[in-house]
């Protein structure tokens, strides 16, 4: 099979994934700020987009984990995977991301991506192709632990913030915390760029290494970093109001001291993990810290039903994306026609989800609307249709 066509397809689909990641995860950084009124929705996404782009250039440790930590390598350092399989894996991730976006679930783009890649590698090259020790150590464990770490830290910080300011009843504290939220939300966006933009860079770099365009065990090239940064920034600016509503309003009603504590906790957890090369799910960290901030004030104010739905989405994301990725890999590896069929299916699926979401749009105008009856109706509708 011709090498250039699959490589180009991977680059395109990876950038599409990055774009969906951007609008899927804007919620993480800005949801609590928009919910408390600290930032206007438009301003929030603009700041977030710019800082995502900046973050993409700051650190590339996570990109290296993706390109050389998940799959086993041959003696020459070339991972056991083909470009067609990588393409199929990313298709699985994009479809899963769009599906959960439509349902308003803050599922992990990271797990969707890794699930897709792992599924594609297993179907294409067998179980030996996956470096399971690396997957457990660098992906599964950080993924399980990070929301609890961020949640615990946010809980303590929220408790202290309320204690010190007498439940934020002192004059000027509410406004003071809102100003602080502007900074802490910006840090989350920056952290998002250092972790999430990296994953796409890692995939493109992996492809270039496999196709022989780049030496093994090297970092991403400048054009890859730039393209990924721009794609995620554009996606962020386009805005993910749907998930923003779940994170900012449905889990718990966030007040500005809680938002500040949650964002500071999420930003520090993600930034330190990025430095160590752990590809954390920024979605899970932010959701965890929001739950922690809710608990830090009052235990009863968490809507555990919503948390439960999010948790289920977390658990099934990696295996589900692995199955979609595996199927796509089986098809794409068979022939060039199969590859084209996968590409067309991805495109059709993507457009389909966007059209479905248009029926009940969540925009910047109704992002803070929290009518329980309406959300219940949406949940039921989503479940029957999904």
């Amino acid at each position, binding site marked *: 099979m011709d090498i250039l066509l699959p490589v180009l397809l991977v680059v395109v689909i990876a950038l599409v994934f990055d774009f969906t990641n951007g609008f899927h995860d804007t919620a993480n950084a800005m949801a609590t700020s928009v919910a408390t009124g600290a930032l206007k929705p438009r301003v929030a996404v603009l700041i977030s987009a710019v800082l995502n782009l900046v973050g993409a250039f700051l650190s590339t440790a996570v990109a290296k984990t993706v390109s050389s930590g998940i799959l086993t390598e041959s003696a020459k350092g070339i991972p056991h995977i083909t470009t067609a399989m990588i393409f199929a894996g990313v298709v699985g991730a994009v479809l899963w991301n769009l599906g959960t976006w439509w349902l308003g679930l803050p599922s992990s783009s990271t797990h969707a991506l890794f699930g897709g890649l792992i599924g594609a590698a297993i179907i294409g090259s067998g179980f030996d192709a996956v470096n399971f020790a690396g997957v457990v150590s660098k992906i599964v464990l950080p993924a399980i632990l990070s929301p609890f770490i961020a949640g615990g830290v946010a809980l303590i910080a929220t408790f202290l913030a309320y204690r010190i300011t007498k439940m934020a009843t002192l004059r000027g504290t509410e406004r003071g915390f809102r100003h602080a939220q502007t900074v802490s939300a910006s840090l989350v966006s920056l952290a998002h760029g250092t972790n999430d933009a990296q994953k796409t860079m890692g995939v493109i770099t992996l492809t270039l290494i496999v196709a022989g365009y780049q030496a093994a065990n090297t970092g991403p090239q400048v054009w890859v970093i730039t393209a990924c940064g721009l794609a995620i920034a554009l996606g962020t600016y386009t805005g993910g109001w749907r998930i923003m509503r779940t994170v900012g309003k449905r889990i718990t009603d966030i007040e500005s001291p809680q938002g500040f504590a949650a964002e500071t906790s999420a930003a520090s957890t993600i930034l330190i993990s990025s*430095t160590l090369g752990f590809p954390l799910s920024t979605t899970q960290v932010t959701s965890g810290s929001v739950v922690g901030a809710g608990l830090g004030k009052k235990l009863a104010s968490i809507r555990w039903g919503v948390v439960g739905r999010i948790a289920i989405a977390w658990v099934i994301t990696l295996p589900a994306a692995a199955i979609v990725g595996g199927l796509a890999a089986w098809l794409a590896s068979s022939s060039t026609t199969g590859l084209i069929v996968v590409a067309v299916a991805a495109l059709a699926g993507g457009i389909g989800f966007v059209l479905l979401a248009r029926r009940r749009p969540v925009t910047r105008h109704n992002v803070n609307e929290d009518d329980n009856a309406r959300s219940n109706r949406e949940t039921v509708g989503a479940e029957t249709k999904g």
Partner: protein
Amino acid sequence: MGIVRAATGSDGSAGFLGVDWGSIAWVCVVALVVTVLVVTLYSLGLRLLSVGTERTSSESGSEQIHRPAIATAAGWACIAVGAIAVLYGVYQVIPAFH
């Protein structure tokens, strides 16, 4: 150099179940210390800056602030130290600066 050096030092030393527990513990400790430090300092700053404003506004309805200069200075100092801690943290995680 604290954060980055310690991280590379514990890299690759796979422990129980082949997992690099040291790095995970490090994430936990650093996130806790940094977050609690920043949030506590900022909250303290807000509290100090609200000194002398409680009674005045509720009883007489006047907006005048009777805050001792020391409280003003200490309040802003807390916020400034918190801001410096954030900037230092960002500086630490950017490899280009090292």
